């Protein structure tokens, strides 16, 4: 019979916690775990406090290793940026561990911290299957440009172990988010239709080399028009972050084969022949 609880002895002022461990908290893998430093805690006895109740003795400047400082500032930046678009904690944690990896590999030496932080969030979103376009990440970042994030991304991905490679960007994940912003009535139907249109268009139309957010935007526009809820291209521009002229261009290409793009059981409120041309 082995008791796996931790070793403990009671002292008068120890709190009555369940597992009275004297080993301290678990090591946080996110922070620098190499240093085995100890710090003095705040005094609690009568001798430690002066007449106002404040600490009498200054327990020295809190020293953090440079690694800890850098990591902490990075994590703060990530948390701040992720908070702007309400990313889930899973993504944030993944971004933390990516940031730590980058810091250890030193692969992104010389890049501004904004760019590194933005790229970590971008890769974390991708790895969790909740892809955000680079434009969206630029929007939440303070000073990173698309170019910076792109370059940083290439550097980081090269240094990741192969099994962890982020999957390529998928339109299925972009469409629901864009549709949400448009506030459609038949949202589910239009979402499914837009995804279907995008997949078919990639096969039969000549748009393979277009950016995925542009294809998503044009597919949504076509789906909305066919379902009767025609949204102006300006709205789609705001929702998808794609320029109106780009959407129009891709839409025109897709319009040529419009009848083949829709699912077989689609109820047309507006037949393919009558779809608007602009």
């Amino acid at each position, binding site marked *: 019979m082995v008791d796996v609880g931790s070793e403990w002895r009671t002292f008068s002022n120890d709190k009555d916690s369940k597992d009275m461990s004297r080993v301290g908290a678990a090591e946080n893998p996110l922070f620098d775990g190499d240093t085995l430093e100890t710090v003095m805690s705040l005094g609690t006895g009568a001798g430690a406090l002066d007449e106002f109740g404040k600490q009498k003795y200054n327990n020295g400047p809190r020293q953090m290793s440079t690694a800890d400082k850098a990591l902490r500032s990075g994590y703060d930046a990530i948390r701040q940026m992720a908070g702007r678009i309400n990313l889930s904690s899973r993504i944030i944690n993944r971004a933390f561990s990516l940031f730590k990896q980058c810091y250890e590999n030193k692969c992104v030496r010389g890049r501004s911290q904004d760019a590194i932080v933005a790229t970590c969030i971008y890769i974390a979103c991708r790895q969790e299957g909740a892809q955000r*376009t*680079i434009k969206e990440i630029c929007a939440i970042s303070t000073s990173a440009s*698309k170019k910076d994030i*792109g370059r940083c*991304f*290439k550097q980081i*991905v090269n240094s990741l172990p*192969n099994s962890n*490679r982020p999957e*390529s*960007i998928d339109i299925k994940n972009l469409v629901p988010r864009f549709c949400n912003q448009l506030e459609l009535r038949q949202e589910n139907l239009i979402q499914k239709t837009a995804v279907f249109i995008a997949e078919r268009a*990639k*096969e*039969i139309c000549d748009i*393979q*080399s*277009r*950016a*995925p*957010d542009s294809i998503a935007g044009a597919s949504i526009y076509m789906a909305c028009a066919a379902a009767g809820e025609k949204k102006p291209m300006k709205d789609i521009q705001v929702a998808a972050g794609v320029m109106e002229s780009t959407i129009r261009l891709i839409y025109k290409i897709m319009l040529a084969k419009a009848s083949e793009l829709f699912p077989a059981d689609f109820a047309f409120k507006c037949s393919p022949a009558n779809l608007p041309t602009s």
Partner: protein
Amino acid sequence: MDYPPSFGDPNSHQNDHYASPMSLPPSATPRSASARDDTHTNTSSDNRFYRRPSVASKKSLPDMGPPSTVTSHHPNSVAPSTPFSAATPFTPRTVDTSRVQPSLQNIVSTVSLGCKLDLKRIALQARNAEYNPKRFAAVIMRIRSPRTTALIFTSGKMVCTGAKTEDDSIQAARRYARVIQKLGFPAKFLDFKIQNMVGSADVSFKIRLEALALAHESYCSYEPELFPGLIYRVIQPKIVLLIFSSGKVVLTGAKERREIHEAFELVYPILKTFRRLS
């Protein structure tokens, strides 16, 4: 014909015998006899000053100072007295010559003129020279035949870009050195080396980049958000290919012509596998 200019066409640089320098006998009168390009006819006036560098000759050029050695350009160059041996190995032309071949688009080479230069004087006295020290610390000089651009630095080093063949590159570099010499500097022609060669090809069918990126994950980098082309890095020879969905391919990073051909031969079957059938 949808194939690029064929063998006998005077304007083609592909399928040229001098692909491998060793394959030409040193005694053959090279360029003036070939019907290959027109640029050579324009240069007859310059023949008085120097003989066009034929493959294996190390003749000193009359008007240049001490005899110049072009050592790194032809690592296997044979002394003029050695007869051409039929057993000299050279890269065999592919048996299937009806297939598409990459054609060279740009060659970047460097040479050291061996003396410090006064860029201001060069910019003032030479024709077709621009010098903007606040923007870039070199003189940018251009000549019309072969159509090239050179960056000339204070240290005497020079970068020559824009030539379409190796011979054009070295000829152009010599022209620039001549110009500098005429301006009064003791210019020599040391360590000519081709640093980069860029080629392009068209496989004439559309390519499924997504599928190719999935299949060859470790070699490919495909980010449609960042760049519409797929970046394929071949390990041996160390070449980078930009593959576009239209079927056009750009190859770069080669130090020798055969590397481009080798890389293309390696990649062509892969591209055929991912041909878009529609």
